[in-house]
């Protein structure tokens, strides 16, 4: 069998667009072939990365969340002991609705009260009675509650759970109520109503967008970059009064965002042609900097990019998870 001469990347479909932009530019500007970038989900990507060392395993796993200990263990078990962690920037998560609808200004508490299964009314936990956003918060439009949120397969959901629901749960005092009811780690905070007010979307943002088209009253959860490509169809809601944008996210004002990573199998560096060049290129200012094509596309550039560049150049292996 001939030896492989292209870099192979797999993983998160959130990172995929960024990675393909980089891969394309890389193929144009270097003599190496364009890397093959696969989607398939962060979990699957990391699993493939950890399948072992060798040509018929991939070189890089894109991930929309940090690698987990179980993945590291799996890697170690298969001889993948050295992994480089590269944070490429941040992904903002925004709430948007049909452009012809009213403006929304949310707080996490609004979201919690709108779609949680049980909420606190007059100090007691009751099944969620709210039918319209105005029921939740009189300042919101009297529009039927219908939310398209990412399905439980999506990493976005994890962020949504944590930064919106959990925050809202705390803010409305429901967390305390759950704790009082014996649910110490507030599992109840994550329980959503099942009457159709919140709809899980297992597909991608395009599906959410299509669903919005079919249900103009609904509100959808999107990635910032997706929203930016469709500003003529969507109107974005503020969260805690902050309008999501690359600036507000990089300063940390806008609360709902998450870091994006890729993980490099160090053993492949120096073996797979172009691998080192690719990762160097990826984190270079030209690409990942605030004026680079990634930022232009909607990636929130990492303020600590310089440190990342250095680590990548020196092949620094990631430390054990804390």
């Amino acid at each position, binding site marked *: 069998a001939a030896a492989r001469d292209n870099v192979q990347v797999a993983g998160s479909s959130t990172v995929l667009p960024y990675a393909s932009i980089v891969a*394309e530019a890389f193929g144009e500007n270097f003599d190496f072939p364009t890397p093959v970038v696969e989607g398939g989900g962060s979990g699957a990507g990391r699993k493939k990365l950890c399948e072992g060392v060798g040509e018929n395993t991939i070189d890089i796993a894109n991930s929309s969340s940090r690698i987990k200990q179980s993945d590291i263990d799996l890697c170690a078990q298969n001889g993948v002991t050295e992994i480089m962690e590269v944070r490429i920037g941040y992904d903002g998560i925004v709430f948007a609705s049909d452009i012809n609808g009213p403006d929304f200004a949310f707080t996490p508490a609004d979201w919690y009260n709108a779609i949680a299964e049980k909420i606190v009314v007059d100090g007691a936990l009751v099944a969620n009675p709210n039918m319209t956003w105005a029921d939740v918060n009189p300042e919101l439009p009297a529009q039927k509650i219908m939310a398209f949120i990412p399905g439980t397969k999506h990493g976005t959901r994890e962020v949504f759970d944590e930064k919106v629901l959990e925050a809202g749960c705390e803010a409305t005092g429901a967390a305390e109520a759950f704790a009082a009811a014996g649910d110490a780690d507030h599992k109840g905070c994550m329980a959503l109503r099942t009457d159709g007010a919140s709809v899980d979307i297992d597909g991608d943002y395009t599906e959410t967008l299509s669903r919005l088209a079919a249900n103009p009253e609904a509100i959808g959860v999107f990635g910032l970059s997706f929203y930016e490509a469709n500003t003529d169809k969507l109107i974005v809601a503020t969260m805690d009064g902050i309008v999501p944008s690359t600036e507000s996210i990089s300063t940390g004002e806008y609360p709902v965002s998450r870091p994006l990573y890729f993980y490099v199998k160090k053993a492949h560096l120096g073996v797979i042609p172009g691998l080192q060049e690719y990762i160097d290129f990826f984190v270079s200012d030209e690409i990942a900097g605030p004026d680079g094509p990634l930022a232009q596309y909607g990636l929130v550039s990492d303020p600590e990019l310089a440190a990342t560049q250095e680590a990548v150049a020196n092949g620094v292996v990631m430390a054990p998870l804390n």
Partner: protein
Amino acid sequence: MTDATASSPAAPKPSRHRGSLLEVDARTRRRNASERRFRRLGLGAIGIGVAALIILVTSILSQGLPAFQQTFIALDVYLDETKLDKNGNRDIEEIKKVSTFGYTPLINSAMSAKMEEIGVTAEEFGLSDRDLTDMISKEAAAELRRHVIANPDSIGETVTFEFLANGRIDGYFKGRVTMESAQLDSNVSPGQLQLADALKEGGSLSTHWNWGFFTMADASENRPEAAGIGVAIIGSMYMMMVVLCLALPIGVAASIYLEEFAPQNWFTDLIEVNISNLAAVPSIVFGILGLAIFINYAGLPQSAPIVGGLVLTLMTLPTIIISTRASLKSVPPSIRDAALGVGASKMQSVFHHVLPLAMPGILTGTIIGLAQALGETAPLMLIGMVAFVREFPSAPPEGFFDPASALPVQVYNFTQRADPAFVERASGAIIVLLIFLLCMNFIAIILRRRFERRW
């Protein structure tokens, strides 16, 4: 002694059918009414099928046909030596050092020159330099760089290029983008659209047939206008070759064995149940299987059409086997008897008589199986074919082992992209896929008509 005398020889009852033939009696009317109903149901069923087809195909066509057209802007680019080859020694290695970002200014100045030529200024439309560059596809810089590297001697000259226009500009001429939507759109401004109109009037902007859609590779989200399905077409072609060469013979052979030769026992029952069960296995599970066997065990490369083809073969087999068996079963035994009676072997009777008679069903199964294989994405997900691939695979047989994409994968990828310009490309890819399918079916349909007969 006889039955006939045993039965009563009493005169038969007068027939109930007496009466004019021209007047249809009540019962016959009822039966005819039910006949008509039945017939109408059949026609209705076909109507539903055809109507569904028409709806789907027209919606695909109306969305996808624009993908075959693209807006281009013709610019005269001065290949500035000071930017491209600072030392002026035409050393290819040095020229290569200038990345595509370095080419952007050339395009920008070419654009300005063009505007001057047609007598408009950027200020008129309230456009910045960057806005001007954004009207041209990001692919342009790459195109320019490729040209320069291929012809280093052209540095210092002015060369006319026909660049792809940005997707939104293109959308404007296809009706996807309007002045109103541009107002809201952060990626395009009405000024840019007005400029595009001016360019069109000036004759340097035109919308015409786009071969690039068929010949170019996929492109990233930043440049939907440059995305093509070339790699996918080749990948699908390779995979279908594998599927056709494996699934049809293996499927038919297996069915012949099971239907004609296998003894009737628990083992063949097992195989039979097993095959219908395989048909119900979700296609992604075949992906799991392919990953485990062909990639991890047999060490075949990721993202390769050969693996895709093998996985799809396994997935298609049950369909072909089930339909082939069904049609073998429907060949009347008297034909087999006749052949055996003149001293043909079982094998000969099957291959000379039964198989030709079963051919229509076999071909139908093959058509349906291939159609399914051609449109399937899920199993390819796990073997690395649902990917962003820009390198064209080489010619067969090596090409079977190179990374490639496939048409349904390309459709799937396009539909996941944020930029609305990808919607038309997804539908365009579907059109190509259907044409692909029609071509494959065409032979089968002709053959089927040849083999069809009643006896």
